[in-house]
């Protein structure tokens, strides 16, 4: 009776299969964003009347939004280290702060979109130049915003499950990977869409 079948171990992430699954999902998701960014780059490069984004979009609010996401990534890792110590109370507090960071980001983005729409920038035209400026802007920031919204919902579910003792360190680590990825993508979107 020596043949005890051990459960197979995830080859790259020995601590959990879920983590490997999240990494593979994120690699695929990164290609979606990469495709959108590459398409944006090609359209902009070939355009002769692309407006100056930093002039038309305003970067002080978005710089603050960038800072907000960076801080929420920080509270996310704090939640994870609290989890590692077995300190659920603090982990829940930091998860809540992360959710608030994400929700504030969404609120500010809604405000920014409203402002731009009032200025006449839509998905099919704007007063400043190439209509693709608005198209690519709304698609890129909208696709990212959907990820933030998904992240806020995902984090909320994990927070509730943490209070009910249904999930542990691994699940918090996996939601963290997703959240940091959303932060990472915003860093790129902020640079390519707003600054350059």
């Amino acid at each position, binding site marked *: 009776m020596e043949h005890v079948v051990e459960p197979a171990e995830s080859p790259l*992430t020995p601590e959990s299969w879920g983590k490997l699954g999240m990494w593979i999902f994120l690699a695929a998701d990164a290609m979606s964003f990469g495709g959108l960014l590459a398409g944006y780059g090609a359209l902009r490069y070939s355009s002769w009347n692309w407006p100056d984004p930093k002039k038309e979009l305003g*970067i002080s609010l978005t710089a603050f939004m960038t800072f907000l996401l960076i801080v929420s990534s920080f509270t996310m890792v704090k939640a994870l280290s609290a989890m590692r110590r*077995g300190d659920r109370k603090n982990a829940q507090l930091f998860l809540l702060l992360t959710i608030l960071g994400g929700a504030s980001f969404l609120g500010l983005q809604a405000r920014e979109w409203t402002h731009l729409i009032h200025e006449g920038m839509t998905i099919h035209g704007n007063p400043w130049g190439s209509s693709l400026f608005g198209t690519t802007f709304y698609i890129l920031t909208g696709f990212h915003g959907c990820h933030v919204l998904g992240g806020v919902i995902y984090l909320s579910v994990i927070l509730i499950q943490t209070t009910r003792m249904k999930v542990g360190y691994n699940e918090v680590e996996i939601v963290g990977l997703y959240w940091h990825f959303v932060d990472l993508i915003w860093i790129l979107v902020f640079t390519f869409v707003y600054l350059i």
Partner: protein
Amino acid sequence: MTEHAQDQEGAQGGGHGHAEPNYFGVIIALTVLTVVELAVVFMPLSRFAIGAMLVILAFTKAIIVAMYFMHLKFEKRTLAIIAGTPIVLCIMLLFALLPDSDPAKVKKPATATPAPASAPHS
């Protein structure tokens, strides 16, 4: 059941047995790099120089997030290769799109010719 996972920390060798990075240092670095980006935007340099610096700064920030917040630095090398694949593919995509996005081939409309006011043929 999941509570047990925390007690067994480090028992399995891999996993989260690594030392915790200085997260506060990481967030300071990211904030400073963001401020540098904002400063670069308004520098009196050529558009190309500003663009190149911004791309380098953005990727530096992205790599810092992946390495320290996502703990990629402490994972197996193969996982980092999986994570890096999208960047390689996207750079290939950019070059694939390049021939079709040549600005020299784009026709500018004749200058100072307003669109005809009459209803266009549809």
